[in-house]
């Protein structure tokens, strides 16, 4: 089942390769069909998933390179399955958004489907080599998406993205090898190495932790490894931005969840204060830098950095509440940030041909429905209760409060800045007298196809905000098991 989910897009991309490149309709249709099928399959998995059951579900395991202990091992828990669904959803919406791409349509969708395989693989892999392969597989299509369909500085942005994340992942590879050799088990199996990692000497645990940390930190991204992100976002095509913010950033956080916490609990404990501090720097510093931005996409990119800080804080605090809050923030941000990038990158930009905040203005009166959708996104992003952003942030801060009191207070104060830059942007972009950017008078309002992208995201943001119980119930057991494991390790491991 998981294999089908992961490799169906690859099949799709092979079919696309055989289609004539002029037939845009067929290319878009096939790509949409495959991404939609992915969403259906992922929902089918959800229906068959048993939240309370211990261990991984839908596991598949075949020997791959037995002499090295490399296996093809897949499986999911509540957290990874939720991320799989999110990936399938955002990829579908990204595919629909990208109908507006008219150059090299075939190549674009081939890469998009390849990217989907990579992302899904990362969230389902239970073998380090497999994980690493998928991790790298994500890098390459995204590099081309930015480098070919990007804005004027796409070369610089794509290279920066590529080199930065490549450097991070190569260091991660070193960590994987150290874990492999250090454990002496002769296996790359994640679950087997979970036990082994805990019995490594604390010295080695530290080094392995740092290697993984660098790999994940670039992806999240954690301050000060974040500067590739605004450049990548500004240049990336909207469909790419949606996936970059919605899914790719979650890969780093997921790495901490799947690898660092359960496998290296002592080192994670030792670095917890550092991680939490970096998380709060992300929140507060990200918000301040976002306020200084003139380009809407840059602003939203920095707000992503700010929001990922909550995930880091929650992961570092390692209480059941903070961990489930962190996962919820991942899901919520995975819905809100694609919506925001879609709005500023496509809906606004294609009509006004600018993303400079001071050049926009009065959009409430010029494209009323689109403006209300943007206002919705802004309030979701600034954490208005009733929408999903608030729930995750509340759970994270509440859960981290007992562990990092001062840091939580600092992060809470950052929420004022978050509200400030969002509303200030709203005032300058939506309110005020209508100006003549993009033509005189009314602009064409949000189209039916664009609503098809925005409405599902808005509905889910609202649902997660109003009634979060089912979503939490979906992954709470996985969180509790992880927290148990970490706690046991810290009790038992008296290095």
């Amino acid at each position: 089942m998981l294999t089908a989910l992961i490799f169906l897009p690859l099949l799709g991309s092979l079919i696309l390769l055989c289609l004539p490149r002029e037939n845009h309709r067929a290319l878009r249709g096939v790509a949409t069909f495959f991404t939609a099928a992915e969403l259906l399959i992922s929902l089918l998995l959800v229906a068959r998933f048993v939240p309370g059951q211990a261990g991984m579900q839908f596991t598949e395991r075949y020997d791959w390179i037995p002499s090295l202990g490399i296996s093809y091992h897949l499986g999911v828990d509540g957290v990874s399955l939720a991320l799989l669904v999110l990936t399938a959803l955002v990829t579908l919406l990204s595919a629909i958004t990208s109908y507006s791409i008219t150059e090299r349509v075939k190549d674009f969708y081939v890469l998009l489907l390849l990217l989907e395989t990579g992302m899904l693989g990362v969230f389902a892999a239970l073998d380090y080599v497999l994980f690493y392969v998928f991790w790298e597989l994500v890098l390459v299509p995204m590099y081309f998406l930015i480098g070919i369909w990007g804005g004027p500085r796409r070369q610089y942005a794509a290279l920066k993205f590529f080199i930065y994340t490549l450097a991070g992942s190569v260091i991660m590879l070193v960590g994987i090898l150290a874990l492999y050799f250090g454990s002496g088990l002769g296996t790359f199996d994640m679950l087997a190495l979970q036990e082994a990692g805990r019995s490594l000497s604390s010295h080695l645990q530290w080094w392995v932790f740092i290697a993984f940390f660098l790999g994940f930190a670039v992806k999240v991204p954690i301050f000060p490894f974040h500067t590739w992100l605004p450049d990548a976002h500004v240049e990336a095509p909207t469909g790419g931005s949606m996936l970059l913010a919605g899914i790719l950033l979650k890969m780093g956080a997921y790495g901490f969840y799947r690898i660092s916490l359960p496998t290296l609990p002592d080192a994670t404990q030792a670095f917890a204060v550092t991680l939490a501090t970096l998380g709060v720097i992300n929140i507060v510093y990200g918000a301040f830098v976002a306020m200084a931005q003139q380009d809407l996409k840059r602003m939203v990119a920095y707000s992503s950095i700010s929001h990922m800080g909550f995930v880091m804080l929650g992961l570092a605090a390692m209480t059941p509440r903070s961990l489930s809050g962190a996962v919820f923030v991942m899901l919520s941000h995975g819905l809100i940030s694609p919506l925001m990038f879609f709005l500023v990158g496509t809906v606004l930009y294609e009509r006004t041909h600018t993303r400079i905040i001071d050049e926009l203005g009065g959009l409430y009166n010029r494209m009323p429905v689109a403006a209300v959708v943007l206002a919705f996104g802004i309030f979701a992003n600034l954490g208005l209760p009733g929408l999903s952003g608030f729930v995750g942030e509340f759970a994270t801060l509440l859960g981290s409060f007992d562990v990092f009191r001062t840091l939580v207070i600092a992060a809470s104060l950052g929420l004022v800045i978050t509200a400030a830059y969002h509303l200030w942007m709203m005032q300058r972009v939506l309110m005020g007298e209508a100006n003549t950017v993009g033509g005189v008078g009314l602009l064409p309002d949000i189209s039916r196809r664009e609503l098809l992208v925005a409405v599902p995201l808005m509905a889910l943001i609202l649902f997660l905000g109003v009634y979060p119980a089912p979503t939490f119930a979906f992954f709470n057991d996985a969180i509790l098991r992880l927290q148990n494991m970490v706690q046991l390790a810290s009790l038992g491991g008296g290095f």
Partner: protein
Amino acid sequence: MAELAWVAAALPLLSFVVQVFAPGALRRRGDWIGITAVAASFLVSTGVFLETIAGVHLHVSYPWATFGDRTFQFGFQVDALTGVMLVVVTLVSLMVHVFSLGYMEGDIRYGRYYTILSLFTFSMLGLVLADNFLELFVFWELVGLCSFLLIGHWYEEKANSTAAVKAFLVTRVGDIGMLIGIFLLYSVAETLQYQELWAKLPSLTAGLVDSRTLTAIALLLFAGAVGKSAQFPLHVWLPDAMAGPTPVSALIHAATMVAAGVYLVARAFPLFLSAPASLYWIALVGGFTAFFAATIALVQDDIKKVLAYSTISQLGYMFLGLGSGSLVAGSFHLMTQAFFKALLFLASGSVIHALHTQNLHEMGGLSRRLPVTTWTWIIGALSMAGIPPLAGFWSKDEVLLAAFHSGRPVLFWLGVITALLTAFYITRATWLAFFGEGRSAARARKEAVHPDHPGHRGGEHVHHVHEGDWRFRLPLLVLAFLAATAGLVGSSWFGHPFTRWMEETMAATAPAFHPAELSPSVFVQLVALLAALGGILLGWLVYGARVISREAVIAALRPLYALLKHKYYLDELYAWLFVRTTVAFSWLAGAVDRYVVDGAVNALGWLGAQIGFSAGDFDQTVIDGAVNGVGQGVVAGSHLLRRAQTGYVTTYLWVLLGAMAAGLLAIAIVAIR
């Protein structure tokens, strides 16, 4: 009936949803849906209220979310305090809905206006029905959202949108304090649910938690109240919020939302009682704000600004009552103020609608032209000034009585002086607006643009000053009736029935609500009455009889006058201290990010590229590549990209698959070695 209390909140929500999804399909742009919903909601609320009079109280809750190992609830509770709030909110909201039919007629965003009114009514009812602090906070923010949207109703004007943003952000500062208070509360009590908390409170105070922590929780929660109820030093948003339509000022910024802070303290009163130090601060902030805002109200020329500062001052009064240990005094004054202040705002709206100015010095002599407005205003003014037997007298008496018994004579006398100032400034406003000679605007004048109505844009027409129809008069008459009589329920003539009922029923819901037991004092009543009469007399001497020259007083007190006129320069101070430093700091952070953090990255990349070029060695394995992967990546990447842009990507996709296989092979080789 009480178990159906949630229906009162659900009806406006339904109305909101219908108006959002069918804006074009509705007749009259949906106003009737909002009015029907809030009218029905008022009936339900009245039914619930009648049951609470009989002592009914209940709470119902359902799981909302389980964060890891802890479950948080969502539900509603009904008791005496909620019963009173339900009726006040739905009644004032209904009156405002009706008044707006006329006031907002022809507005460019009439439909949006009614839609948000429904959302507000829902959120405000949710706030008073909430049975735990998390739920309270959710609705607390939602009423703030509605306030933001309605202050910025005419967002074309920059001043209006700035006022909206300012309101949201200043209250947000308080809200963050409240949020931290909630975290701290949960950390020590492990529940946010009122009933569970009151049950746990005795064991907490018995020594598990030190009193400083409890005081910190109480004061942090109070910070939220300071923001929402516009108390010093977070009051600066409320006067600017007058940029919104006047009926909105009446509903949100006078009667209901701004009273939410008072409601919060009243709701969490057991907590505050168990941290007595916090009560002292509440009384101090309330007493000071009451006096402070009243002094600013003395010199305002804009009729809405007078009322705005008056609202801040009256809210301060409520906190003075609460801080003096009397739950009843605060909530009683909340109720009467809601009626007389909503009345005064709507009456001012009627004046603004007729005259198209908000400047008191352009009014005058309106008593002949706007008789209903004038007389209802006068009832509201006298009620607020504290003339018996009107409502304001009884509730103010209750506040002063609590302050008198609290053993803080300074605060008591501050309250008395405030009563005098209140009577003075409302007399001044009354005289300038309704009596004397008609000044510029009060005579028929040519009018191009309605100052409070940028929505009305038409050709120039001669405008005759006349009173609005029933849509204006009915709400004024209903509220005037309540502003006159609502206080009798707490009158000493009948033995303080409101006080006794409230104290008994609240004590039944939580033992911690122990009654304040205030013995009535004729001295306090006499002092309050003398202050009110003295203020009115002074006002009449200056503005009515003109025995005391206004100009001479201003000349004699010029520095003080300037200080008041500039609202103690607080806006200027905050602009420097907070706004500019924040913006400057954000620019600094932006520059650091661009030139320092990213600069380092680019420098490293450049260095790597240099090494990569000089080495010129591309035959390294993947693992070796890790050592100088940066440099290699630059070169390889730029080659790939250049080719990709000139040729077909398709080719490279096949290459990519091959490269991945090669990479795996490389790992395998290294691993074997």
